[in-house]
């Protein structure tokens, strides 16, 4: 199970990398980046998964005394919670910058932005 999720995550990262490298349209690059972002989150969650165990929530099914033997690793989940939220912030920033770039040059083609090219 963990292997399937991990392989899916790595595939998503590769798809995202390919998309952001091969597309010249800025909007498509942003979409590709969010796909890669999702892949990274999947990989981190998969690392914390342990087969036969349950979610890290203490209730009638997971008594406190047995918690250490019954739950999966909660730390990667807390990390991914953070990563998702920061990902949203980064995507919003990229969209705002692309709006400003389009306002300046009236194009979304990255090849037309040559100021920093050498």
């Amino acid at each position, binding site marked *: 199970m963990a*292997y399937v999720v991990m392989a899916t995550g790595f595939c998503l990262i590769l798809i995202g990398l390919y998309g952001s490298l091969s597309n010249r349209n800025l909007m498509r690059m942003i979409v590709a980046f969010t796909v890669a972002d999702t892949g990274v989150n999947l990989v981190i969650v998969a690392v914390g998964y342990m087969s036969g165990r349950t*979610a*890290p*929530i203490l209730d009638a099914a997971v008594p406190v005394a047995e*918690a250490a033997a019954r739950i999966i690793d909660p730390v990667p989940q807390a990390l991914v*919670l953070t990563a998702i*939220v*920061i990902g949203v912030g980064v995507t919003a920033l990229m969209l*705002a910058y692309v709006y400003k770039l*389009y306002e300046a040059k009236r194009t979304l083609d990255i090849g037309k932005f040559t100021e920093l090219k050498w």
Partner: protein
Amino acid sequence: MIKRFAILVMLLAVAAVFATLTLSYQPDAELNQTARYYAERTASEVGSANIVTAIVVTYRGLDTLGEVTVLFLASSIVGLLLARGRNAKLNPAKPLPASELLVTGSRLLTPLVMLLGVYVFVNGHLTPGGGFQGGSILASGVLLMLLADPLKHFSHHLISALESIAGLFYVAIGVLGIFLAGGFLDNRILPIGELGALFSAGAIPLIYSLIGLKVGAEFSSILANLSATEEL
């Protein structure tokens, strides 16, 4: 052509690294030391049924404060970058009216979506979910309203007041922890209570509700700013 080939070679190299990582990966049979500490001590030290919430809000509370700050920074930069477009709104182009289905549906669904968001962040210490998830659900209600009526104007003063008050109280509760309990953002300024009850885990429900309001306000302001941009 050369560029495409270079991309392919690079991706193959990265894929080889990923394949080695996946094939050599051995899942742990036991929890590692950190995870074991959280699993064994959360119930007695923090009193939160959801261990992820205990880590995010209390054990790593300072990181969460930083994370909320990053989000605040992102939403203010989006506002700053797009501010000029909003002032220059002289003759806003009339968009096509939203369909009858969307308008009627959003009237029915928006209050329910908001209610679900509040439920998710109030119960963050008991069930999967919490302030960040609940705040995102609140913002998705705002997005539904914006889709139904693209010209709808949200009060930026209300959003920023909500956001600053929530942030201020979050830090104030953290500072109270220094004086009344073990340190900054310690949740034991309120009684820990019984594991699994709504009023338990000390200040965690309070802190997570404030985070939920703050995140909801920040995402809403990002959405409102992005939707207020002019057609170029």
